[in-house]
């Protein structure tokens, strides 16, 4: 079930907004498509990104995938647990954010709600 408490991008990231902060992760569909995740490369706290920028990389055994931020902002936290246990993204994609940004600007119109994201995924197939 795709959680209703957050929004989604067409690049298969989820974004959970709490106050002026946004947690970003990848969806269940994304982790399933990637397979066993073995390495995560995250930015440093303080790094800034524009909407659509790649902020990190998620690697599975066979694939390397850029991860994009749907919002512009500055990194205030990264999920340190992923350094030692990258597979957490496979087992709990919605409980494990990659980065948390202080939102500089957010364009809601580019984001999908849970239902729209699910339809998008089905449609892509």
């Amino acid at each position, binding site marked *: 079930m795709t959680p209703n408490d957050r929004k989604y991008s*067409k690049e298969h990231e989820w974004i959970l907004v709490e106050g002026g902060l946004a947690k970003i992760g990848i969806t269940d569909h994304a982790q399933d498509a990637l397979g066993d995740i073995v390495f995560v490369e995250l930015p440093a706290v303080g790094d800034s990104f524009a909407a659509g920028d790649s902020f990190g990389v998620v690697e599975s*055994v066979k*694939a*390397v*995938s850029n991860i994009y931020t749907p919002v512009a902002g500055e990194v205030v936290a990264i999920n340190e647990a992923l350094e030692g246990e990258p597979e957490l993204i496979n087992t709990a994609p919605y409980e494990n954010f990659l980065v948390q940004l202080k939102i500089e600007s957010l364009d809601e119109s580019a984001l999908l709600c849970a239902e729209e994201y699910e339809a998008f995924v089905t449609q892509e*197939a």
Partner: protein
Amino acid sequence: MYYTDTMFPYLPSFWQGAQINRTWEDLYMQDCKHTPLYETHLRLGGKMVDFGGWALPVQYSSILEEHKAVRERAGLFDVSHMGEVFVEGPGAFSYLQNLLTNDLTTLQPCRCRYAAMCYADGGTVDDVLIYMFNEEKYLVVVNAGNTDKDFTWMLAQLEGYEATLKNDSAAYAQLALQGPLAESMLAPLCGGELPEKNYTFVPELEVAGIRAIVSRTGYTGEDGFEVYCAAADGPKLHEALLQAGASDGLLPCGLGARDTLRFEASMPLYGHELTREITPREAGLDFAIKLNKPAFIGKEALAELPRRKRIGLKLIDRGIAREGAEVMTSGRVVGFTTSGSPAPTLGGNFAMALVDADAANAEQYSIMVRGRALEAELAPMPFYKRAK
């Protein structure tokens, strides 16, 4: 299952040649070749990819789980996309002696031998396995993506030899059963003795009532068997093997695990460690090159000391190096990686690289990954060797 282009902008390794398609339905419609086990893969939930024009599963459950199964118990692979070329006639032996780098003089019936097939300049056409049935009948098993190219090359070298070639690839299904428990799973299904020693084969054996060629060979670094049967019998044989091994933890395994397993065992993969430009000597396959043979295609070129050498590397810094990454030492670029991956059994990330011969023994290397220099050190090959 779905894959989207945005999810895989940088496909490493041979996957660069493999399109990750939207769904298995697309693969069907895109003229992807099917092995006899295509329906089986779908039924088992295989994540299908286009592998050099063949629709095959990269995994069924998880690459790591499938890899582990082979190391600890057994795994079953569909390798029907490999090519089978029969070489027959009074001139078959002489023909093959000229065609291949290895010496077949001591090859006996029911034995297999590994060899390279080279161009005159020493570059590699393919690496192959030869099965000797008798003095006038040999089977040459070639890499899937190279079958047509190899057959064309082999035909062109026939002039003057009393031998015939038959590309019988479409007639065969081929399964690989690999792992420490492979023998115990396979033996009860057989109507005769399995090949006892590595690199031997039984030309005709009934396996689950299906006539098959069974060799004690493989591409994983474990004990195991490769089983060749009529294409139409493939699905039934696959089913019988899966059932026979179910209670001992046999898993169907895909291309992903096939690659991590051979990589851990430091086995070369054509297109990576061996190519048109990379000779078998550069790849460290001297054991399969017999320069004391009177003549073979590429002998003069291969007799020269190789200018480059394949080395094994273990990543010290955090990160994964894939193929095509620059390798540096002492501040200069000395080569590039040919394969790179996590090594699930060993832990850590490794790479194989082709470097200048004089830089093959450095204390320390750097591998360039996404603009960063990752420190690495020499790792003896094979990275993984099974306990005897």
